[in-house]
């Protein structure tokens, strides 16, 4: 089974037509990969479906806007993948 990062990187590559080999765990989805908010909805949709979760984009955006979090915490891919793993684990625990 491929890692969360591999799956997310493949989703990003296919959704945004970004060469897969340019996507690394340290890539910032917005600053490095140039993904805009509308494209990120497609990525969120694909992640939601693939992992059976609901990425809390509104909550994250609010936290960034309020200065309570940085975009790096959610949009650097290794951090994004860690959040996904947490959500998957939480879903498994509540099932």
């Amino acid at each position: 089974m491929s890692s969360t990062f591999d799956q997310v990187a493949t989703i990003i590559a296919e959704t945004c037509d970004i060469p897969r080999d340019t996507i690394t765990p340290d890539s910032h989805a917005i600053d490095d990969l140039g993904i805009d908010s509308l494209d990120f909805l497609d990525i969120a949709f694909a992640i939601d479906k693939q992992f059976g979760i609901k990425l809390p984009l509104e909550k994250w955006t609010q936290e960034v806007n309020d200065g309570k979090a940085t975009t790096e915490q959610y949009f650097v891919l290794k951090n994004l993948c860690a959040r996904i793993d947490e959500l998957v684990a939480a879903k498994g625990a509540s099932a």
Partner: protein
Amino acid sequence: MQLEYFHMIDRIVDLKVDEKTIVVEAQVPKESTVFEGHFPGYPLMPGVLLIESMAQASGFLLLGVLKFERMPILAAVKEAKVRGSVFPGDLMTLEASVAHEGSGYAMTEAKIRVDGKLRANSTLTFTLIPFPNSDMRGYMNAVAARVGFPQQAVSP
């Protein structure tokens, strides 16, 4: 239907909030300034207005699912296909369903039929925003009343 005012939907036929589906009707007018240009001698509904009709049907569905707490705004159109022409005087039946409800966004799938025949379909993405002001909220309440939005469907 009043094309010039973007009033695309005439009546909500069926809204199932739990199943996240809606059926609406839209009577295409026999005459409209739109048809004077699209096209002289061969009037037909512009494809973009068919997409707008599917977006509005989806919008009423999302308003119901969200209990009028958010306003759906069209953000992306995918896989839109116009499979056959819609002419002045046609009665369109539109169906929409929620394909995915995300955080702050939703995706729907919508279809237009005339006399049971599929004329258009699309997958649509909406951002779900708080109502920006009371004017818009009031306007949407009036629109909902005009199309017979079943308020009991969203009552607690």
